[in-house]
């Protein structure tokens, strides 16, 4: 066995940095007076996420210097290619904004504990690792690291029964789903004799047996739960309703992005697309159930929960397209969705005030008059969630549907999926619009005006809003990265020795034509 080289440590540098900062926060917590504000620890955690981003830049620099850096390392368990680097930048950035939003939230809710920030950091370690792991067992471990952190965080409003319910529900159903994933891994090992994604592809070729299909299906069930795709979505509204709002901001974007990354790696490990009907049904169901569920909600957190189910559906459309543009669209979608959803939940967390009292749509009445900044940023996020041009949400949806219409395999089914998606986005505009309507067109109903947002909260909101607009107007740079990521991933089978890239399932042009 090769000795571990320095370069291998660089390959997991963001994870190492995040863990170190997490441990610092944990150890510093008992030294502070019980009952004192933990804002300082929050700032340390914030520093940790920024350091992780810096570590990723170090990885980028290393890639530029040494092309072999993006080859599998750590005994073939980790692969830091452009795909992984994209998520290494995205996930700590999500965590950073969530921490910014939490600084004020914890004081408002009278939660005085430093582990909160440590758990966010540990969860981030898991998510970051999920995106670069190419070994199914390591993916499972990373998935557990991130899940267990979020289970605990979901129950952080200890005195609130809803929060406890949320944590228990998330934990039980989540464990169940992870078991499915693990079972899938076991079956995959049985089918191929390996748990390395890089070896699975060549071992299966383009005609996998029943065992491998069953294994993929089980893994889709497990990951489908994590990304809240229908029909594995039942937990979402209850968990999102009960969990602390900044944590919902995190868990509706970070673990989701990571789980989508894993799903991409697993599904595109082989050239077969036997999973197509499964993903097609998941996508159609998620979009429809999510949007129609959201139509009936009066609680903003529940509404956004259903909306996140719907958005998982849009994302799965890109999976179903199963071409290079589709993967690039899916990667871009995770970033866009993160920007707008983190922002929306940040507003919800500030507006909820102590005990998260104000979460119904009607409570937002007249917000445009009372707090122009909150109302304006929330409007941007809602417009982006609707998919109005010049916002991230529009471009993300546009790329998803374009990828579906350019796909060579299953064209008719994908045209129908696109039609379902377009109809759904029209339906969705109603419930997002409702929030804008009450904010600007109705008089305030609450006796007290919302407290002025703290500096950190303002920063979080403005960052999310700028990201939303930036991705909608100047997406060139991010698209370039997502396309590079897609190129790393798509001919995964080809790169590891399969001599027929674009064989039967993906006819020539898709696999070989550079995107745009």
């Amino acid at each position, binding site marked *: 066995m090769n000795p571990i080289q320095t370069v291998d440590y660089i390959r997991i540098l963001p994870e190492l940095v995040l863990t170190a900062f997490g441990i610092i926060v944990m150890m510093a917590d008992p030294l502070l007076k019980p009952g004192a504000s933990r804002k300082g620890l929050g700032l340390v955690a914030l520093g940790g996420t920024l350091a992780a981003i810096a570590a990723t830049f170090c990885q980028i620099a290393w890639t530029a210097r040494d092309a072999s850096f993006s080859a599998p390392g750590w005994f073939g368990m980790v692969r830091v290619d452009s795909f992984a680097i994209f998520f290494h930048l995205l996930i700590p950035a999500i965590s950073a904004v969530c921490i910014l939003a939490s600084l004020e939230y914890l004081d408002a809710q009278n939660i005085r504990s430093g582990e909160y920030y440590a758990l966010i950091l540990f969860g981030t370690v898991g998510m970051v690792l999920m995106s670069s792991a190419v070994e199914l067992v390591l993916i499972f471990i990373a998935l557990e690291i991130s899940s267990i952190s979020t289970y605990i965080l979901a129950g952080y409003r200890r005195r609130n029964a809803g929060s406890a319910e949320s944590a228990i529900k998330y934990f039980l159903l989540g464990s169940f789903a992870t078991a499915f994933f693990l079972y899938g891994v076991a079956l995959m090992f049985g089918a191929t004799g390996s748990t390395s994604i890089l070896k699975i592809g060549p071992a299966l070729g383009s005609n996998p047996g029943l065992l491998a299909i069953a294994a993929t299906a089980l893994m889709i069930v497990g990951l489908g739960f994590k990304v809240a795709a229908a029909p594995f979505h039942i937990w979402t509204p209850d968990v999102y309703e009960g969990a602390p709002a900044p944590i919902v901001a995190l868990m509706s974007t970070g673990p989701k992005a990571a789980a989508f990354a894993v799903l991409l790696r697993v599904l595109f490990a082989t050239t077969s697309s036997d999973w197509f009907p499964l993903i097609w049904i998941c996508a159609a169901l998620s979009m429809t159930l999510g949007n129609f569920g959201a139509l009936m909600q009066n609680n903003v957190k529940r509404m956004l929960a259903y909306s996140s189910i719907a958005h998982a559906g849009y994302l799965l459309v890109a999976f179903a397209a199963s071409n290079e543009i589709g993967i690039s669209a899916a990667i871009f979608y995770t970033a866009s969705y993160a920007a707008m959803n983190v922002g929306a939940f940040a507003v919800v967390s500030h507006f909820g005030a102590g005990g998260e009292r104000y979460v119904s749509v009607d409570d937002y009445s007249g917000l*445009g*008059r009372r707090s122009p900044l909150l109302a304006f940023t929330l409007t941007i996020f809602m*417009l982006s969630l*609707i998919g*109005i*041009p*010049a916002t991230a949400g*529009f*471009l993300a949806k*546009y790329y998803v*549907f*374009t990828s579906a*219409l*350019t796909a060579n395999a299953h064209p008719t089914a994908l045209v129908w999926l*696109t*039609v379902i998606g*377009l*109809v759904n*986005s*029209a339906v969705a*505009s*109603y419930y997002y*619009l409702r929030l*804008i*309507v009450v904010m*600007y*067109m*109705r008089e305030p109903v609450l006796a007290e005006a919302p407290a002025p947002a703290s500096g950190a909260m303002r920063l979080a909101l403005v960052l999310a809003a700028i990201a939303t607009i930036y991705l909608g107007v*100047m*997406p*060139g740079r991010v*698209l370039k990265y997502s396309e590079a990521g897609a190129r790393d991933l798509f001919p995964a089978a080809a790169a590891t020795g399969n001599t027929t890239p674009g064989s039967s399932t993906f006819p020539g042009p898709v696999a070989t034509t550079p995107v*745009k």
Partner: protein
Amino acid sequence: MILSLVTFLPAIGALLLMLMPRNDKALRWGALIISLATFGVSLFLPAQFFYGTSGFQFEVNRNWIGQTIHYHMGADGISMWLVLLTTLLVPVSVLVSWKSIHDRVKEFFVLLLLLEMAMIGVFLSLDMFLFYVFWEATLIPMALLIGMYGHERRVYAAVKFFLYTMVASVFMLGAIIWLYTHAHSFDYVAIREWIRVSTQNGSVSGTTLQWLFLGFFIAFAVKVPLFPLHTWLPDAHVEAPTAGSVLLAGVLLKMGTYGLLRFCVGMFPDQAAYNSTWINVLAVIGIIYGALVALVQPNLKKLIAYSSVSHLGFVVLGIFSLTTIGTDGAVYQMLNHGISTGALFMLAGMLYERKHTYEFKEFGGLATPMPVYATFFLLAVLSSVGLPLLNGFVGEFLILSGAFQSTVPHAMLFAILASSGVIWGACYLLWMYQKVFYGQIHHEENRSLRDIDGRERISLVPLVVMSVIMGVASPYWMKSIEPAVISTMPRTGEVKAQAQKRLVYRIVQSAQARATSVINSSDASTVQKAPATGGHK
């Protein structure tokens, strides 16, 4: 370059207003200066326009997102005048909102200027993606203007407006994405050429093009609005603040007819000809239905709103007569309607500021206390009626001559029915004038109504003057509109001939084919070739 300046100057202005302190007076002046500056810059367009040629001028074409989505802007004789209409109506709208908007002034003018940017962008975009971005971007400021500053049922009206337009646009988005995935371009000119070539070589089926045509058509028909998709319009107009109504009627509805002309007819001439009959039926129903409903309205603003349905029916009729003269008239009528209906909505708004109602029963005999107001109102009414020497006449005359010459099946019937709309128009507009200004004064407080002041007069003068100038000097406009119309519908002649001959042509061709196949029954290739030409539509 100048197009970018005209488009984004209002946006820059909106940004500046956002940063200004909440001093209402300064904000009003700021908005007025910015919108006037935009108007001033836009005057360079007709000044530097190269008349007598077709095609797009002042073009800008840069990569925007990747290699395929371009920032491609250009103006021809149609879009240039619509831009000028927009830049003229916005300062006027700022003036009419001077006193009527006193709450959340900053938001109001920011939204107004953002709306101006989006509207100008719609007319100038030559890239479908860019077009769609601007198209959707008009939606939010307009919905917010209605919902935040409107009357009692404003929220209902704003949501209805938003959802109607949003849902309809989704169909257009679907069509645009489909076109991109097959033509590999968003460029208007390139896609047009692609459709022409693939229609000729048969690589895209007529059914597919029909679906695409309908995708675009629904989005534009809702905006126009064409009967039976018009139900959002009366609500939106009645509830909107005056400036909102002026821009809604003056510019936003024109986006629909502009789209019909530029995209539906311009890109799909065969489908436009194929569908022209039922579209003409809808247009004629719109003309007569709108007029009849306007006739019985007890509410001044609702009457003007329904008159828009009727007038826009004329525009659609002109475009789908598929004749050059009819389309010339349609384009001219778009400008006229913007000016005359814009003026009518402003006048209605001024009355509302004084009386806080639009109900006719509250008015009557107002010519005595408000003589100047009554004069302006009369000019606007007459321009809307289509009195010769005023602008409305030119447009309606050209549209009806187009409709009579049209080769669309049953064109004569449509033209005759539409002509009756002119009479209905005179009826409801003159009755409206009578109900407001003549007769006894029933309400004592109406005796002491203030006549319009200097600011209000200044805001009305440009529109009234324009309606006279455009009534007598129409050739000045026509010399740039006509080449643009001809180049937008290049195959009108061809299509016309085909439509004329369609039935006869098919019978003759298939008979010929059959005859040839009988004669050369041994030669299989002729048999295969003959039905192919015979079936061509």
